[in-house]
């Protein structure tokens, strides 16, 4: 309880400015991590090899391309985690989408010229994700299955279905437009990065400027209050899990374009990285807090660690150790901040 509570009504309601600062720093911790990593790798590269790390546009582009897929998964997870849920199915929903997109492009290519065939494949890959997303939403909203369990079940279902559709192998695509989407650049900026940047701006708008975003925060803080405010929480949850699956779908489509092949296991190694990115970015797994730009920073932290360690020639296994340490530090910062700022 603040010291001002002893005053008469009318003089209180001033949260301590120092605590507000602490909260601000904790909120921006992902950017601080990123800054520290940049300084670290740049120093190392200069001292050990006499080259610049971040001065190289090749390195920057590689890091950006590297960060795209986990970031797309993480964007959807940002919403779900803010709402107090979790979506484990996205790893294989991404694979499902990649496989369906690859098949879609190939099958449509029998009748259509390459460009519309690509569009058909992209739309198919995106639409298919709405099925697992909707089912996740129904399980969680209508049947009250805990998100961890419901989406873990969907993780298995999507994995199986993706492999079945793929015939147990990778599905190669031959479509030059699709390959160009995944690998070419415009003004030096890879298309996949451009698409991701545009999408994340849209997601930032959705989270910070719309009722949907506002209700997502409220749901994560106090579900009872959200229901009492007359918000249709069931529908909100269904939309959240469909959005999460859709983000995984964009990741899957871009994956298939980049590697000109759809693979069921495309997203498997990215699931935990994407959740880590959300947490490093300042979201709480208890729900109620997080931002899109925090998640962007979190994804960049992970990508810089992974790419940077390879660049400075450290054994790649160290990246798991480094990412793990950053997650733990990040959660510790969050908890410390909470202890001081909440009553």
């Amino acid at each position, binding site marked *: *309880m603040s010291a001002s*509570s002893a005053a008469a009504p009318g003089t209180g*309601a001033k949260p301590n400015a120092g*605590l507000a600062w602490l909260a601000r720093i904790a909120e921006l911790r992902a950017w601080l991590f990123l800054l520290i990593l940049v300084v670290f790798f740049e120093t190392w590269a200069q001292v050990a090899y006499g080259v610049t790390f971040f001065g190289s546009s090749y390195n920057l582009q590689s890091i950006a391309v590297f960060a795209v897929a986990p970031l797309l998964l993480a964007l959807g997870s940002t919403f779900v985690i803010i709402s107090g849920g979790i979506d484990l199915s996205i790893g294989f929903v991404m694979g499902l989408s990649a496989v369906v997109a690859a098949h879609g492009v190939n099958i449509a290519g029998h009748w259509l010229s390459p460009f519309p065939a690509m569009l058909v494949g992209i739309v198919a890959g995106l639409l298919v994700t709405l099925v697992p997303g909707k089912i996740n939403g129904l399980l969680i909203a209508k049947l009250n299955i805990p998100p961890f369990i419901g989406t873990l079940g969907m993780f298995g279902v999507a994995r199986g279905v993706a492999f079945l559709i793929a015939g147990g192998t990778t599905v190669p695509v031959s479509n030059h437009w699709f390959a160009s989407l995944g690998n070419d650049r415009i003004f030096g900026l890879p298309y996949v990065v451009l698409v991701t940047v545009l999408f994340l701006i849209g997601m930032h708008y959705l989270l910070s400027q719309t009722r949907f975003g*506002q209700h997502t925060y*409220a749901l994560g*803080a*106090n579900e009872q*209050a959200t229901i009492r405010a007359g918000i249709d929480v069931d529908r909100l949850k269904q939309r959240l899990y469909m959005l999460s699956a859709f983000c995984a779908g964009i990741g899957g489509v871009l994956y298939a374009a980049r590697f000109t092949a759809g693979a069921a296991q495309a997203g498997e190694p990215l699931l935990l990285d994407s959740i880590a990115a959300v947490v490093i970015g300042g979201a709480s797994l208890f729900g109620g807090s997080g931002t899109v730009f925090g998640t962007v920073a979190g994804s960049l932290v992970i990508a810089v660690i992974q790419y940077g360690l390879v660049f400075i020639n450290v054994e790649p296994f160290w990246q798991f150790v480094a990412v793990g340490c950053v997650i733990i530090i990040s959660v510790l910062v969050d908890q410390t901040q909470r202890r001081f700022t909440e*009553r």
Partner: protein
Amino acid sequence: MATETGPILDVRNIYKRFGGVQALDDVSMNLYPGEVVALAGDNGAGKSTLIKAISGVYRADEGEIVLAGEPVHFASPEAARGAGIETIYQDLALADNLSIGANIFLGREPMRNMFGFLPVLDRRKMAAAAKETMARLDFHVSRLEAPVGRFSGGQRQAVAIGRAIYWNARVLIMDEPTAALGVPEQRKVLSLVQTLKTQGQGVIFISHNLHDIFAVADRIFVLRRGQLAGERRIEDTNPDEVVRLMVGG
């Protein structure tokens, strides 16, 4: 509202039975605008059944509830709230991570168009409404963007009440509003109730604390075992009599 003289809320001869228990047995009470009515009674006396019948959680078996001269039958708490009967719960039903304004407007957020076409949340309007509403309650808040989780218990209570009055609640039901608060905060909440009263709001105040009741209430209804044990004007009674009514004998 043509109820300058009549009661804003008139509860007439309510009965409610749960299995073998007669929870409310011919209970009547009323509330005038600008009046604070206290409900007192031991645990299980029927206080919370009565407010749940008023706020649409339960349906009374028999009897009538008249709001501003019109008989009402609420199918749900939402319907009661829509008609202007708002219950301020102890757990406050606030989203701690949102600002005062966002809490006031939760579920009914105002939008504006950015660049003439892009709908965005109208945070300025929410902040202005928050400032105005809190000032009406004599709480002057400097940091309107801070999440309500950073405020104290009494301030948060004011936010919950502010939301109710912003949306034109006519009857405010406060269930043990001073429980779980420190003494200075309790005083703040009591003076908040006084402020509501001077603004013509009708308040039903449920409390175990006779000291609080005598500090703010105009009238007191005492329940005992589902029945109305007595109704007194606060100036015509004293704590000893109220306790006698509560325990019987």
